[in-house]
């Protein structure tokens, strides 16, 4: 009994000492200070140098947290708890957040740098008049492939993913709308299809791709492609850019039937406590030089038209990552289909994954 009490006392004492040291450290770094903003962004989605630059320039501390899915991010913001001042949802998630009343309307007077954004990317269907959101990056969904590991297959069409020569070679992303989208696109159906008939056709067709599928994974695919472990992957343009920068054999293509065009957008969630700081941050990120540096670091395409002149021409002239407006005609932006339909997509996707061997 005595031993128990003394060991319990020791543990408590150690805990308090650690807590005290921790508080001291936080004070030293000014974390508890008033002027901080909490930025909630995707992983690997900002140049960390820029965060430092912002802190020095504006004297505002940045607490940076990351998420890996729109849904997970929305869940955390909905529950409250942490006061996120900035978040970066994709277009359909902007719509969902707006419906759930999770966003604050933006005041453009506080964001003079808004003028740098290409008008083509403003006033889009998911957020008319950009009431709540400003585009941060955009990109496409396509196929990254490594010709040096293949026998001359090309991917001008989604159909080539079904080719018998690709047995156990294709890596898909673990996301229902993207994967079902491949089959929908191959039929020429809309990526926002809600017709059960079309979705069923798409799933049936996907199931015939089964023998070609090597794995259905997330961001790990980047490393597998770089290390020549995998030769064909369904992936987003920026991820493909990451792969290409590490392994020059890899190429990226958006098949001609069409694909997804997506936007990630800066918003100020309702949980924000330092709204002034959030505006300063947004304005900072829209500065042409900052946006250029960020785009070169992240690898996705920037909607900031002034930034393009600060970037390497090799990047901005690359049609694979900066397709011209004509090429964008074939691309489709996701709409928020509602939870009911999202459930249908995911159940069909689950059925497809269950059939994989």
């Amino acid at each position, binding site marked *: 009994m005595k031993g128990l009490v003394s060991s319990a006392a020791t543990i408590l004492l150690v805990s308090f000492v650690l807590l005290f040291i921790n508080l001291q450290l936080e004070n030293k770094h000014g974390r508890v200070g008033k002027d901080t903003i909490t930025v909630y962004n995707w992983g690997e989605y900002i140049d960390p140098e820029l965060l430092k630059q912002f802190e020095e320039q504006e004297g505002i501390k940045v607490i940076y947290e990351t998420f890996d899915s729109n849904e997970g991010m929305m869940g955390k913001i909905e529950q409250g708890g942490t006061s996120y001042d900035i978040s970066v949802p994709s277009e359909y998630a902007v719509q969902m957040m707006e419906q759930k009343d999770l966003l604050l309307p933006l005041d453009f007077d506080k964001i003079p740098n808004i003028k740098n954004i290409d008008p083509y990317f403003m006033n889009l269907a998911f957020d008319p008049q950009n009431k709540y959101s400003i585009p941060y990056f955009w990109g496409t969904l396509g196929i990254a492939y490594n010709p040096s590991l293949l026998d001359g297959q090309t991917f001008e069409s989604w159909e080539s993913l079904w080719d018998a020569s690709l047995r156990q070679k294709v890596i898909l992303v673990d996301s229902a709308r993207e994967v079902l989208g491949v089959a929908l696109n191959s039929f020429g159906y809309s990526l926002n299809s809600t017709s059960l008939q079309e979705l069923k056709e798409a799933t049936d067709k996907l199931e015939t791709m089964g023998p070609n599928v090597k794995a259905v994974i997330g961001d790990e695919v980047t490393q*597998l492609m770089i290390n*020549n472990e995998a030769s064909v992957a369904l992936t987003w343009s920026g991820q493909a850019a990451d792969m290409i920068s590490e392994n020059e054999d890899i190429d990226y293509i958006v098949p001609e039937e069409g694909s997804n065009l997506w936007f990630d957008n800066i918003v100020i969630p309702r949980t924000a406590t330092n709204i002034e700081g959030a505006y300063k941050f947004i304005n900072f990120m829209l500065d042409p030089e900052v946006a250029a540096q960020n785009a070169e670091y992240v690898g996705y395409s920037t909607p900031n038209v002034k930034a393009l002149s600060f970037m390497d021409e090799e990047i901005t002239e690359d049609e694979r990552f900066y397709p011209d407006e004509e090429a964008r005609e074939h691309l489709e932006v996701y709409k928020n289909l509602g939870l*009911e339909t*999202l459930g249908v997509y*995911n159940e069909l996707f689950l059925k497809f994954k269950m059939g994989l061997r």
Partner: protein
Amino acid sequence: MKNNPLRFVYAVPYAVWMLLFVLAPIAVIVYYSFFDLSGNLTLGNYRNFFSSIYFKLTMSSFWYAFLITFFSLLISYPTAYFLTKTKHKRLWLLLIIIPSWINLLLKTYAFIGLMGLYGPINGFLETIGIGSQQILFTDFSFVFVSVYIFIPFMILPIFNSLDKINPTLLDASKDLGASSWVTFKRVVWPMTIDGVKSGVQVVFIPALSLFMITRLIAGNKVITLGTAIEQQFLVTQNWGMGSTIAVFLIIFMFLIMLLTSGKEKGASANGKTK
């Protein structure tokens, strides 16, 4: 201590803990499982669970959990047995336990490297002339990595029960003319069965709800109940359906606990009461 009136006071933190962190969450899960997406009271989630796809999912989860438990036991029992025979058994046991202190994700990522096309395992297969194989993203890799992760949890209870056997009992069995096999079957096995049962419990139940490894090692070609719950909550945002799957997972756990717990109530896990 037994008749101390204070013992009810001592029980308060425990009772509060159980209420807040065990009973209340289960109640919340059961509550949510009766609601559909638009917040209406429904039994639809349960009906949906018995539809072909979730039923199939449950079956395959059980199959993989069974495989993982079976191979863990197959490796752990002899290992634990030989451990008790070694000179520095505590040291050896510690060496086996240490890997389980390392973060699960780190170990999993290590296996991605080891099992890759250009990893050391394929390098070895290449040199002995078999040629490199696709190891990652197969049933084999999934079961292998899971077994590796669970082995320490299986060895520990079995080791403890083997270690507690009084060696004179084995001598007595031999003196009475029993062969080694009969001694094992009639004396050692019955005395360690409780260790095996608790080992099976701590492996089978988490194996049913493994996730992460299903994606990183099996490339989502194996889908467990755990993965399905994660998807329902985070992607589909259908908390009702996610809760329903969780309710079934809890029911399965209770059934397994019932099946693997000893008959006599309150028996200590080391088999001494037999």
